[in-house]
């Protein structure tokens, strides 16, 4: 049968990854339907502050190179990253910066008008480009503007305030569209497409309060998982050591506060309720400086995170709670002025001025390294991927792709600062072409030629699920269940993990799944019902949480952000492997499998920056 209309693609998500993909696919001449729960300009990518890495000309003259960027990313990721995609990302980075520059991103400038650079963690070179204190916002806006241009030309159609519910698969198991719900009218309908790109970001909300935005539930990924897509490395979650705990979320406090001399301490007396400036010097415990005299407050992220976590578990947190002081009050005025930007954020949300009052901080879940499992075609020499190969960043479901934070590639065991924005844009630009090629060259059965009944069936399935939630007449409350899930996941499955705690966590998550079956929604209307949308996400998060805990339990080693007190060493013989999780909808069971990570270019070496640290500190102590 002749194709009845032009092939189209669907992109779910308008963060950096989704917008970069929209621009690239539209440029290839293919129409794009772009779905997002919020106007794309308000996507979570807007939150990134720090910057974006690339070996540009200045860094290169200091001895830095794309190869070093590649190597640092593997080293940072504890060698769990696949090497060919990381290689390409590092070598494309300078070109991506140039492109963003041409799009008009107001990067900070040197007196001569060149793009300025700053230092960032995990590198000895200045290689991070930035735009004031709002790099993510500036990059997102530039891509939003280019997308709007394609929208004006008629190649991109936006569906904002639409929520992705389920992928539509044909009899061959290929992805042919989606079912989505209008968040205002609550209409549920199907959309046809010859390829679908998931660019739905991370899952921080599974841990309750994180540094993520409120729609970062991982719900979209969890729905693909339940529909047959695999997860890769779900247990890998990054926790940032210094965030400002709030009633509604944790806001990031930049590392530069410690870089400039900020000191971390707790009162020596547990449960001390005095204000920080009323506590005399000899009753303060500078526990990082005491335990790590060499590096003090500047120990690597994961060590700082664990020490702060442990102090609070021992009851030394401020007022017995989960917070420690990050003190900048002693710094000279000139230094304080340098930190004005981040002090402002703290003051805006707490009402306290860090110049005069020690800040209260605690670690918070920040980034999802794991995500939907994807494949790619490596070049013969493994130095990168074959450009335009149709399967680059495709999931195990033909025609279903994963780009950006929801993709498990690039960052391995932990992510280096300022590498996420890069990986998102790289996915969109580099692999966008793969999507277009797949649709043009590989797709035999066009979505438009499928019978209506296929789509109607999926729509019915989603309508029934929504109706079941609306009709539920139990006692429990989805918001309460969501909160309890966040608490137990944060307690047992973030900074430090061990078998017993994980077993309890799993039990608790499964309990919550049972309780979810007896909920009642406080809004049963069919107009902008935000409670329905949230409740649906809670169920998906509970399933995703289970996969995270199972992965964390099965990985009996410590690597990157995954730290087991009962298995302290990295174990390459058994675990230089990707965790693959599969879900069986018939039984509701998760099945785990480990797949070797090939290391064709750089053989794994010990990740010593943490260990030398401890050894040096230990020798002195």
């Amino acid at each position, binding site marked *: 049968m002749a194709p009845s209309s032009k092939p189209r693609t669907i992109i779910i998500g308008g963060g950096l990854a989704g917008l970069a993909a929209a621009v690239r696919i539209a440029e290839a001449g293919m129409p794009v339907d772009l779905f997002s729960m919020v106007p794309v300009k308000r996507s979570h990518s807007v939150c990134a502050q720090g910057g974006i890495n690339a070996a540009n000309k200045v860094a290169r003259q200091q001895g830095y190179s794309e190869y070093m960027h590649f190597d640092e990313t593997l080293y940072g990721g504890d060698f769990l990253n696949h090497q060919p995609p990381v290689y390409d990302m590092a070598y494309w980075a300078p070109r991506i910066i*140039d492109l963003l520059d*041409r799009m008009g991103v107001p990067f900070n*400038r040197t007196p001569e*008008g060149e793009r300025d650079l700053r230092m960032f963690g995990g590198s000895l070179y200045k290689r991070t480009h930035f735009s004031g204190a709002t790099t993510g916002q500036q990059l997102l*806006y530039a891509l939003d503007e280019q997308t709007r*241009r394609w929208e004006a030309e008629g190649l991109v159609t936006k569906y904002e305030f639409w929520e992705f519910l389920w992928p539509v698969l044909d009899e061959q198991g290929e992805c042919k569209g989606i079912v989505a719900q209008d968040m*205002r009218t609550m209409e549920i309908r199907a959309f046809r497409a010859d390829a679908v790109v998931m660019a739905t970001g991370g899952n921080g909300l599974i841990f309750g309060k994180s540094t993520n*935005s*409120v729609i970062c539930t991982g719900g979209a990924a969890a729905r693909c998982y339940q529909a047959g897509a695999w997860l890769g490395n779900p247990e890998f979650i990054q926790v940032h050591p210094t965030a400002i705990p709030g009633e509604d979320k944790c806001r990031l406090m930049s590392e530069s506060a410690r870089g400039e001399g900020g000191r971390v301490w707790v009162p020596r007396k547990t449960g001390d309720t005095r204000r920080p400036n009323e506590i005399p010097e000899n009753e303060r415990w500078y526990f990082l400086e005491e335990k790590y005299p060499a590096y003090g407050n500047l120990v690597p992220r994961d060590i700082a995170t664990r020490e702060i976590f442990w102090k609070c578990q021992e009851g030394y947190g401020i007022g017995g709670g989960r917070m420690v002081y990050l003190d900048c009050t002693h710094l000279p005025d000139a230094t304080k002025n340098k930190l004005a930007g981040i002090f402002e954020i703290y003051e805006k949300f707490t009402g306290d001025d860090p110049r005069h009052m020690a800040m209260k901080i605690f670690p918070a879940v920040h980034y999802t390294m794991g995500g939907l499992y994807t494949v790619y075609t490596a070049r013969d020499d493994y130095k990168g991927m074959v450009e335009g190969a149709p399967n680059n960043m495709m999931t195990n479901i033909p025609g279903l792709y994963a780009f950006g934070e929801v993709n498990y590639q690039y960052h391995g065991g932990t992510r280096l600062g300022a590498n996420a924005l890069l990986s998102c844009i790289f996915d969109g630009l580099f692999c966008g072409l793969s999507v277009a090629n797949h649709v043009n060259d590989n797709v035999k059965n066009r979505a438009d030629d499928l019978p209506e009944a296929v789509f109607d069936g999926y729509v019915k399935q989603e309508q029934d699920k929504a109706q079941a939630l609306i009709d539920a007449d139990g006692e429990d409350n989805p918001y309460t269940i969501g909160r309890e899930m966040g608490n137990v996941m944060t307690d047992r499955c973030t900074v430090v993990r061990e078998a017993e705690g994980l077993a309890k966590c799993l039990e608790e998550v499964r309990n919550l799944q049972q309780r979810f079956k007896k909920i009642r929604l*406080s809004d049963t209307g069919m107009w902008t019902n935000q409670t329905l949308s949230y409740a649906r996400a809670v169920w998906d998060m509970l399933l995703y949480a289970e996969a995270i805990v199972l992965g964390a339990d099965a990985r009996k080693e410590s690597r990157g952000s995954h730290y087991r007190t009962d298995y302290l060493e990295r174990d390459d013989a058994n675990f230089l492997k990707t965790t693959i999780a599969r879900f069986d909808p018939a039984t509701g069971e998760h099945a785990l499998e480990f797949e070797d990570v090939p290391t064709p270019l750089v053989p794994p070496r010990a990740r010593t920056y943490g260990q030398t640290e401890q050894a040096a500190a230990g020798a002195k102590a």
Partner: protein
Amino acid sequence: MIAPGEQKTITFRIRRQDKQDAQPYWEVFELPYRLNLNVISCLQQIAENPVTKEGRQTTPVVWDCNCLEEICGACTMVINGTVQQSCSALVDKLLEETGGGDIVLEPMSKFPVVRDLWVDRTRMFENLKRINGWVPIDGTHDLGEGPKESPEQQELRYGLSRCMTCGCCLEACPQFLLDNDFIGASTIGQALYFNEHKTGAVLADERLDVMMEPGGVNDCGNAQNCVKVCPKEVPLTLAIAKIGRQTTKRAFRYFFAGR
């Protein structure tokens, strides 16, 4: 600052509306006081337990938000009469301002209400399309760096680029109405933003043409309410002045040269 202990509860008076054309009504909620709350964390508590002060079960209040750190622009509403972001509206500060009185939440009045505190700001995004709000690059191919720029120029453009399409400036503007066609301060700021970029300036005339249509920059009455409420300190006065001058020049060119 209200010391803990004095304040036991917080009262929220919320203007609600079920649909765009429905009659608005008020509901009052009482929450236990705690230190360091913001308005959104209170709305979250109400969502979890939507019971009014009188003890009547109701539906959760609907509002728009995402980042919770005053950078996405979603959560704008009118709080105690002042338009602002609800995520960065601290309860302790509001209580201090009112001496512990009620906190009143209303939707912005210059946009159609979707439900409760959620309004439809499509007009703002459509206006960005109208002014060709982009830099017309040739494509995503590797064509080297963008134009060089002085730190001063970067600072100007960065200041304009921080606009998060929140709508505060429009809510406060006497000229911008629910049912007129004034383009509004934020879009004027964006027109300047793109005109100030070397490649963006290629479309400067097209942008100025839009600014010269009815509803363009000439409809601004220079009341400067906009700049006072902008949470991102976007240099709106400067933008209005500059775009005003650029349109005057363009009008002259039309008059004398016919283009």
